[in-house]
């Protein structure tokens, strides 16, 4: 039997891609069905929120703070060139709240939490712990997947808000040391340009990113195969894919908010 290059490409790449897409879509659908079905795993969700939030806190604090300081430092010369140095606080606030805080938080959590979920569920899968739950009449999807995805979805907006706050504090510190601006006047001018739409849009982004990180990590972990190697691969691809999706979602959400803002 001979196969043309075209058939080869279809068999090697296109078919598997669609199979993967189909199984991912079923996974997401299953989440939306099971998340609304009692019994609810409140205890496990709270435990996961704590784990996810608490573990990311040091890293988010550091990156948020540094982003605030560095961004302020880098923006000052160009603004000064246009004689608009007094706009610094509001520019920083817009940048941090609209763009930097959601994105930085999402990427940090994708790296830290997404890989963690992928590795954890992946190792449970390859050591048959997930099968063990299944045969003792426990729904592993509900206990492991639903609780984690709900937890990341709820935690990310909180982390994002915290990161924005820390970032603004970093910016304030920088502005205060350079321009001697007071705390109140810094925050007054910072928030003068921020609308509710900005805040809602960012919270919405954080919810979407949180869901993405959780579901991708769980999907990769839950479907891990081939022993310890598979665990590493699950953790790794979880991070790569969720970051990729986060950027795509960022573009889409920014388009929509710009459209709402201008119309």
């Amino acid at each position, binding site marked *: 039997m001979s196969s043309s290059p075209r058939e080869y490409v279809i068999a090697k790449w296109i078919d598997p891609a669609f199979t993967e897409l189909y199984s991912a879509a079923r996974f997401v659908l299953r989440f939306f069905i099971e998340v609304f079905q009692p019994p609810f795993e409140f205890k496990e969700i709270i435990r996961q929120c704590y784990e996810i939030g608490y573990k990311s806190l040091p890293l988010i604090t550091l990156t948020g703070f540094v982003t605030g300081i560095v961004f302020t430092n880098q923006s000052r010369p160009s603004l000064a060139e246009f004689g608009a140095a007094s706009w610094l606080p509001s520019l920083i606030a817009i940048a941090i709240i609209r763009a930097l805080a959601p994105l930085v938080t999402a990427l940090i959590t994708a790296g830290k939490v997404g890989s963690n979920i992928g590795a954890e569920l992946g190792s449970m899968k390859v050591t048959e712990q997930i099968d*063990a739950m299944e045969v*003792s009449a426990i729904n592993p999807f509900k206990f492991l997947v639903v609780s984690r995805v709900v937890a990341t979805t709820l935690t990310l907006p909180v982390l994002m808000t915290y990161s924005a706050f820390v970032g603004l504090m970093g910016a304030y510190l920088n502005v205060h040391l350079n321009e001697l601006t007071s705390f109140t006047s810094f925050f007054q001018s910072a928030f003068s340009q921020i609308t509710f739409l900005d805040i809602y849009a960012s919270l919405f982004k954080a919810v979407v990113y949180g869901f993405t990180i959780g579901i991708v990590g769980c999907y990769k972990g839950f479907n891990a195969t081939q022993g310890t190697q598979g665990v590493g691969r699950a953790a790794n691809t979880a991070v790569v894919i969720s970051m990729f999706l986060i950027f795509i979602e960022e573009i889409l959400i920014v388009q929509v908010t710009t459209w709402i803002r201008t119309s």
Partner: protein
Amino acid sequence: MTKHKQSQGIDRSQTVILLKDLYKSFGELDVLCGVDLEVYKGENVVVLGRSGSGKSVLIKIISGLLMPDSGTVNVLGNDVSKLNSKDLQALRLKIGFSFQGSALYDSMTVRENLEFPLVRNLRNLSAAEIDKAIREVLEAVNLEQTMNQMPSELSGGQRKRIGIARTLILKPEIMLYDEPTAGLDPLTCTDINDLINEVQQRYHTSSIIITHDLTCAKSTGDRVAMLLEGKFLREGTFEEVFNTEDERVKSFFDYNFIQ
């Protein structure tokens, strides 16, 4: 040599597991090609077979973790492939599955491992009842002292026994043991074999014991079935199975005892 098992308490009028003409393949690989098996109430059936012959696949099909390509799987009067998810869960409560690698939840202590299936399935138990159940199964496997340890702190044999305890806590009617003695020293193997027989007598279970260890087969099996090339080629008491000129069966026996 191992003493022979005294079979008792077997009720041949009641079938608990009935497999008929089971087929299962993964892609190109045909693993099961027409498996038939019947397990009676109170009976320990040992399934022997080489590595990769599909023993684990067989009991995963019985517990509904894998679906057969064709054939029927009847467990306690239920056709497993036709059950809805709620009935399947109810059936699984009656099946204890001891995994090849123990599959203990490694983020939980021994106590939490044992508690987990119990509190999630019977949600209105009091703390005292839970405590009593945990102590009872730990005593059955003779590992009371490990209650607060993590699975990573246990030896291979201890992990196996905690894995068995975790399935016993739901008082199953059927036990499926996947390689209960693999990778253990001869003395620990004897302990596990005794435990399997004790479970049979104490909890009145019917069991399928998967192994390639003939000592285990001899001391725990009321009946032995040999899986070869996707089918049960020979079946009967230990002697009946190995009293043959079939090279494939003989070599299996020789390898185990002449070393």
